[in-house]
């Protein structure tokens, strides 16, 4: 059953990614699509942390910041190829998550939220204050990945938007596939067990701190890769990527779509990414609407949009 669901989820996601461009009226929509996929990727990471393991983080933008600035700094200072810089960022984020996760994950609820929040803000502060290295609040340029030129030389001409739409779509699919695999793996089951009850999970032999840490590290790597992709496709990055509001947006996307499901995560990311695009006409109301959406969904659809809609549909079908 769960195995079949996995392939349905992946199939739906792949179809959406492949077919949506048919309806794009202009090249601009490829950019928006790529942005949705990047956000969805970091949110899939949070699904593992919040949805599977039941832990919260208000600091994951910090990892996105590490990933983004790895792509900005490593090619310039270490002479690393941008693609390797993505990897470097992921490793640094993973190690960082392992180091701070160990003491932090003993905490629960609000305390965990605030500890992770503290971490995220410290990262964004370092990025903002170390002007000599990061250019401070104005941000810095990011080297080109070079892959698009390579494809062009091979005779495949893509616009910047199309190229990044494709790359981010593929990376999101891989990320979703890995997350869905994890769901049914022994680790995934252990995470879901400790989500239900840590004591019960421990009594049946789940190494609770270890599984929590694993979920934390995995989700940090997702956020880091998403941050890297964002930096590479914009060719430019500011410390906002690591800011508190970005962390909040990520968690909101996860919970908005339905925090247990990978498909829901993508859905939540799509809505919250599209919202400002739709509201550009009413830029003044953007904050107000974003806040209202957060509050109303949490009150009236606590399971998230997708599961609530699915339940309603199923209820009608039966």
């Amino acid at each position, binding site marked *: 059953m769960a195995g079949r669901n996995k392939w349905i989820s992946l199939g739906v996601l792949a179809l959406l990614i492949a077919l949506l461009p048919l309806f794009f009226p202009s090249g601009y929509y490829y950019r928006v699509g790529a942005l949705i996929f990047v956000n969805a990727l970091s949110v899939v990471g949070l699904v593992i942390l*919040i949805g599977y393991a039941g832990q*919260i983080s*208000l600091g994951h933008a910090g990892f996105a910041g590490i990933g983004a600035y790895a792509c900005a700094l490593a090619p310039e200072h270490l002479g690393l190829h941008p693609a390797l810089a993505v990897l470097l960022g992921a490793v640094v984020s993973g190690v960082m998550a392992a180091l701070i996760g160990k*003491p*932090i994950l003993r*905490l629960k*609820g*609000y*305390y965990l*939220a*605030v*500890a992770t*929040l*503290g*971490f995220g*803000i*410290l990262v964004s*502060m370092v990025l903002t*204050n170390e002007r000599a290295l990061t250019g401070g609040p104005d941000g810095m340029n990011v080297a080109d990945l070079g892959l698009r030129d390579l494809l062009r030389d091979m005779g495949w001409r893509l616009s910047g938007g199309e190229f990044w739409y494709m790359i981010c779509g593929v990376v999101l699919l891989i990320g979703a596939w890995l997350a869905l695999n994890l769901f049914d793996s022994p680790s995934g089951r252990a995470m879901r067990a400790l989500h239900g009850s840590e*004591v019960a999970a421990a009594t049946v032999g789940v190494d609770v701190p270890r599984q929590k840490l694993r979920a934390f590290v995995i989700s940090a790597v997702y956020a880091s890769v998403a941050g890297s992709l964002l930096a590479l496709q914009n060719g430019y990055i500011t410390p906002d990527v690591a800011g*508190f509001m970005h962390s*909040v947006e990520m*968690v*909101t996307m996860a*919970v908005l779509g339905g*925090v247990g499901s990978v498909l829901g995560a993508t859905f939540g990311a799509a809505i919250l990414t599209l919202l400002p695009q739709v509201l550009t006409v009413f830029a*003044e*109301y*953007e*904050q*107000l*609407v*974003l*806040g*209202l*959406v*957060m*509050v109303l969904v*949490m*009150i009236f659809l*606590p399971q998230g949009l997708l599961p609530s809609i699915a339940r309603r549909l199923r209820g009608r079908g039966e």
Partner: protein
Amino acid sequence: MDALLQFLFSGLTVGAVYALVALGFTIIYNASDVVNFAQGEFVMLGGMITVFAFEAGLPLPLAALLAILVTSAIGVALNKLAIEPARGAPVVSLIIITIGASIVIRGATQLVFDKQLHRFPSFSGDDPIHVLGATILPQSLWVIGGALAVFVGLWIFFTRTLTGKAVLATANNRVAAQLVGINTGWVMTLSFGLSAAIGAFAGVLVTPITLVGYDVGVALALKGFAAAMLGGMGNPKGALLGGLLLGCFEALTAGYLSSQYKEAVAFIVILGVLFVMPQGLFGSKSTERV
């Protein structure tokens, strides 16, 4: 020595504001187990409403009173419209709700008023007072005095009045409080109103020194929370001391180490407290029921 005293003066002033935010946190946390991330917005509202009422021609004390009353009503509305309907929701949802509410308040403020920084005149002039080679603004004395007055007032309220004791009882055990006839719904309303009023009061006191704009609330909420945690969540004495300590840490960091990383102090304190003594300075050790 003069420099140290000067840093301590400015630290105590900022710290008093953190303490007031932390006290507001504490009241709501005790009554409802909700950590209200919108707490900083109350401070912002207190300052903003006073500014605009004052500029509209109201005398300053009346403008301040109006600001405190309106903010208090907004606090009650927050409870009625967003917190009560979500009773029993998981922590993640409650965090998103209060953060969402804070974004709504910010967005509405920027629509109703504007995005500029504002101030109104200090209560007793801007001539600094010289103390032992350092100087302190009269308005700083107002801020510090205000924080102490609120603390004493709360202490009297919680220990000497029946309503205050009802709030304490609800904080202690909601169901038991209901069983002895305490209207816990009313206690929640009261707590949100009181907490918002205290925040607004802080905003009124500090605006002549630090200015106010629609987006000053986020940092205040986070620092107030750090202060509350430093003192021990849920403990008013801890909130006061935590706030003053945090303010002084910040001022000393800015003075002796780096003014850029002054803002980092609060978060290093949060992490340090959580790692070393999660119960804070005055908090009681909690045991977990299985």
